[in-house]
């Protein structure tokens, strides 16, 4: 017997030989090491630093390597004569508020103004939905709100508090509002910038410093500017909107909505948090550009903007449009709210990207299956104003927004989308796999896993009881929005 073997056989104080101890330690190491990974996973699932976009205001959240997925032409295709959107009637918010002001049940469509009459003659199904909203949904909503009084009080209070900081954007014409005013001692002439490349880098850095989570730059495509402006923007809404020459470039900024309430849509989530933050960034960035001597104008949804924002976001290379009509970014999925600044400050522009969303959406359809109002198409992309995209029934979507309790809006399609996930190892890995898989096989597997592992309520249950629902939300609200745990109602 060798010395090692002898030592092997000698029992230590625990009554085990050295080899037995080694084997037992090996087993213990496997168990503890594996348990450690499980615990690490738990920690990473809970970790607030995975609430993408809220970790840092230094640009550290825009991590996706877009260059690898850059394309020369965006994924939407021009397939016919294009047409600009008329904000007065085609933007559902403007249309319905006009309808509410002018609707008289007895006179019907005949009592409406020319533009509305012309619009409803063209799209009669929207007349039915919009009138149903005014005549049926609003009263039901009032009744339900009274019956469930206070149930969503904390959610509403939190959302209103987020929306409380809502600085006014511009309400005067571009020739007045966009030009540097001299209030900060702006130069009379635009400063000579060293190069468009350097300017783009600077503008992005400043946008991050101001609190933007995503930033992209593009040339402004005139097709995205409204043909007729909304009220209160300094344009005459009755006249066609003439695009100012200095709206040459568009800078897109954006911030995420709070993650936990967003998963508890439609009742507990809100867009006001992100809109408020993005609005502040946009107004500050506008001021910064003007101080370089260049004209600039902020377009800040949801209230004051002169263009369709999603296609500009796509052109600026921040993401692709999903089946639900919202832009999907690699970092935040659809969980973000953008704003645009138009200017003529020369900058190097970004390229649009394609990271697999079009292919994924073709088979996924989770948003369409979970949309309570049936507004999202399950079919193929089709021509909308000359471009190929998925069609959204915005009238039906808008109608649902006003039927449910809690915060205004719905955002269920944002919450259920597999791309709208926090930034932990699991979802980052899934994104990496799906973006780099040309076969589409991973898309099918991930979609099936999504449907089976992350179930959602029956879409009808999102409605209020009087409309046959149960006031459901996609996920339970975070503890700090449960009114019943804090307030005696």
């Amino acid at each position, binding site marked *: 017997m060798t010395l090692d073997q002898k030592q092997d056989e000698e029992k230590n104080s625990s009554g085990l030989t050295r*080899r037995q101890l080694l084997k037992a330690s090996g087993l213990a190491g496997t168990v503890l090491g594996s348990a450690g990974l499980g615990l690490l996973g738990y920690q990473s699932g809970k970790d607030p630093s995975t609430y993408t976009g809220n970790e840092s205001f230094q640009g550290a959240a825009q991590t996706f390597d877009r260059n690898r997925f850059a394309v020369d032409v965006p994924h939407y295709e021009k397939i016919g004569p294009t047409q600009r959107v008329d904000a007065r009637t085609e933007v559902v918010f403007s249309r319905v508020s006009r309808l509410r002001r002018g609707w008289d049940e007895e006179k019907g469509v005949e009592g409406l103004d020319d533009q509305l009459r012309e619009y409803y003659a063209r799209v009669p199904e929207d007349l039915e939905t919009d009138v149903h909203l005014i005549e049926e949904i609003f009263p039901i909503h009032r009744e339900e709100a009274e019956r469930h009084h206070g149930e969503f009080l904390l959610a509403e209070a939190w959302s209103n508090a987020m929306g409380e900081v809502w600085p006014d954007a511009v309400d005067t014409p571009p020739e007045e509002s966009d030009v540097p005013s001299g209030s900060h001692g702006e130069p009379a002439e635009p400063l000579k910038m060293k190069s468009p490349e350097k300017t783009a880098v600077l503008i992005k850095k400043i946008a991050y410093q101001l609190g933007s989570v995503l930033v992209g730059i593009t040339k402004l495509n005139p097709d995205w500017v409204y043909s007729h402006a909304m009220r209160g923007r300094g344009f005459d809404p009755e006249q066609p909107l003439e695009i100012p020459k200095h709206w040459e470039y568009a800078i897109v900024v954006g911030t995420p909505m709070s993650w936990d309430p967003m998963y508890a849509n439609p009742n507990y989530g809100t867009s006001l948090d992100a809109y408020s933050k993005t609005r502040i960034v946009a107004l500050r960035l506008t001021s910064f550009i003007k101080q370089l001597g260049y004209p600039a104008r902020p377009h800040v949804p949801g209230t004051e903007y002169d263009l369709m924002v999603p296609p500009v976001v796509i052109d600026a290379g921040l993401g692709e449009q999903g089946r639900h009509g919202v832009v999907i970014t690699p970092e935040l999925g659809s969980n973000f709210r953008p704003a645009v600044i138009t200017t003529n400050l020369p900058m190097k522009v970004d390229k649009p990207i394609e990271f697999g969303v079009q292919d994924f959406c073709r088979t996924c359809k989770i948003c369409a299956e979970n949309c309570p109002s049936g507004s999202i198409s399950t079919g193929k992309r089709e021509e909308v104003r000359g471009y190929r995209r998925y069609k959204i029934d915005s009238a039906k979507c808008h109608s649902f927004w006003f039927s449910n309790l809690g915060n205004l809006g719905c955002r269920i399609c944002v919450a259920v989308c597999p791309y709208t996930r926090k930034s932990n190892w699991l979802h980052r890995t899934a994104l990496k796999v799906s973006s780099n898989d040309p076969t589409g096989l991973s898309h099918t597997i991930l979609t099936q896993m999504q449907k089976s592992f992350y179930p959602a309520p029956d879409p009808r249950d999102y409605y209020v009881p009087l409309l046959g629902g149960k006031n459901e939300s996609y996920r339970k609200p975070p503890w700090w929005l449960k009114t019943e745990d804090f307030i005696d109602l």
Partner: protein
Amino acid sequence: MSGLFWFVEGILFCVALLGLRAWTQDRGVPMPLWKWILVVGWLGLLGFSLAFIGTSLGEGETVAAVKGGALFILITVIVGVGFWRILGFSNRVDERDERDERPRPAAAESTGSVDEEI
């Protein structure tokens, strides 16, 4: 914290592999490189399954933890059983007895310092 965590994880898995080495030696199972790769791959699969369950629980996605956990653990067990056979772990030879009977190099006998299997 994260650095310390991975340091401890590294030590635990090294100890696990050393334990496995001792165990295979005692059973007389030869362990060429490809077998170690399979073992490490399986440990990775086990780690992924547990981390998936943990992450899903942390996210509050209980259904994902249960369904996904069950699926991945099942895959881990099936792959584990397959590997167990491929790696020859089930062919038990009473190695300690056999080893003791094998002729040993004289030098090793005299110095007691060489154990070619450790």
